């Protein structure tokens, strides 16, 4: 029995992030908190963002959802932690293009694990799962007035 088609979606690194999420939890104190829902399915992600001097000092996520939305959130936090917020937003743009199936030129940005989500673009119904946490990041950045 073959699952080749599915394997382009459920890459091992994605399932690893799903099983062992990085930066899962909340940040107490004056972190920006943004909650995003996917109203069509009920997935819910909260992103906590702590920015100091334009640098993402700390970022955490919490919520409930499918493997793709939770793994994507985990990867997002891992990727942007310690980076400049402007760089994180650039990464978000690159990610959106990747979901549209475009060949992305990340330039100097290291996509690292996020690259594994490339296969989601072949599953149109699941793109909103993958972008949920990134949308939350963009919304929290707006609150930070960047």
């Amino acid at each position, binding site marked *: 029995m073959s699952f080749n088609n599915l394997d382009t979606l459920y890459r091992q690194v994605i399932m690893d992030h799903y099983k062992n999420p990085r930066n899962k939890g909340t940040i107490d104190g004056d972190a920006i908190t943004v909650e995003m829902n996917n109203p069509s399915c009920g997935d819910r992600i909260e992103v906590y963002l702590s920015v100091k001097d334009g640098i993402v000092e700390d970022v955490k996520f919490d919520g*409930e*959802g499918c*493997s793709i939305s939770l793994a994507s959130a985990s990867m997002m936090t891992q990727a942007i932690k310690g980076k400049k917020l402007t760089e994180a937003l650039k990464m978000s743009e690159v990610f959106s293009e990747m979901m549209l199936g475009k060949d992305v030129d990340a330039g100097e940005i290291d996509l690292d694990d996020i690259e594994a989500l490339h296969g989601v673009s072949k*599953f149109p*119904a699941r793109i909103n799962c993958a972008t949920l946490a990134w949308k939350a990041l963009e919304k929290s950045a707006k609150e930070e007035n960047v």
Partner: protein
Amino acid sequence: MDVNAVRKEFPILDQEINGHPLVYLDSSATAQKPLKVIEAVNEYYRFNNSNVHRGVHTLGSRATDQYEGAREKVRRFINAKSTAEVIFNRGTTTGINTIAYSYARNHLTEGDEIVLTQMEHHSNIIPWQQVAKATGASLKYIPLQSDGTATLEDVRNTVTENTKILAIAHVSNVLGTINPIKEMAKIAHDHGAVIVVDGAQGAPHTKVDVQDMDCDFYTFSGHKMCAPTGIGVLYGKRELLEKMEPFEFGGEMIDFVNLYDSTWKELPWKFEGGTPIIAGAIGLGAAIDFLNDVGIEAIEEHEHNLIGYAMERMNTVEDLTIYGPEKRAALVTFNLADVHSHDLSTVLDSEGVAIRAGHHCAQPLMKWLEVVATARASFYLYNNKEDVDRLVDGLLKAKEYFGDVF
């Protein structure tokens, strides 16, 4: 009922999805369309398209005859007393909103109660929340038993002399619970309340007799019963509809128009402002002919047997949680171990099996079930036992695929 003959009427079923023959198990979201319906709509646009109730020309008469002919077919299908009680609209959501705006907002005041259950679809909750906010009336929920049913005793304990509206689904789109509408209508009437029935999951699958059930309003969507999208029906008792103001104002629904005031057409047209959904209504008429030809009782029996087989097969799948009562309509909502329903649905889709995943427009019910989301397989007259087997095979494959992960 010969399911193989029925399947041949649905051209969409004859295709492969991701390399496998399509198994369509999402009819509660929308049903597939038989050739007869597709051809009726096609024929209308090719030969008879015209606006209704105005042109004196031949096409205008043909269109009007077919449109009003469809209304008579609906009347017979639900056994309404008169076509004056059959209003064409966009679907169940529009039907409930029409009642909420034209009836409830004008008849309810502070201290009045609207009684619902927690199994309702969003479209039978939110319009009432808005009515409550606008009028000062309060919302009350009939509690559910652990299997997802509402007992008549609990209905009696919730409905009071202050209750003006009891709004309830004929059949739950998540649990498959079939509510005893006739008995519930009696309780509502004993307290001077009206009963509003969300028939979206009822009318396509079971014999509806609005006079026998004695419901005051019954509303449903054509697209869930083999008709095109965009057409629906609101049934209301004549004496109630007469007392109601129109919901939409404009062309088609007027009698005399003066500069500062106007009068309305008689029922049902006073509720059909603007050019109506003519092709949709004709398609609905064709769908009713189709369902009558097969026989609604035969469909009910077929679905009953099929859901029985589905429950029997699915109960053998380990780590599968099934929600809802034992006696249920032809749908089953479930979760497989810790696999999110989205992930499950993607695996099944890769095997050609289409199911629904998510909260099914019933977030309060998901909270009651203490789940984030669920998967749902829903059946209709064109599904067969092989479809059930393919679903179960898909579930076992999903278990295998995610087995190492979860």
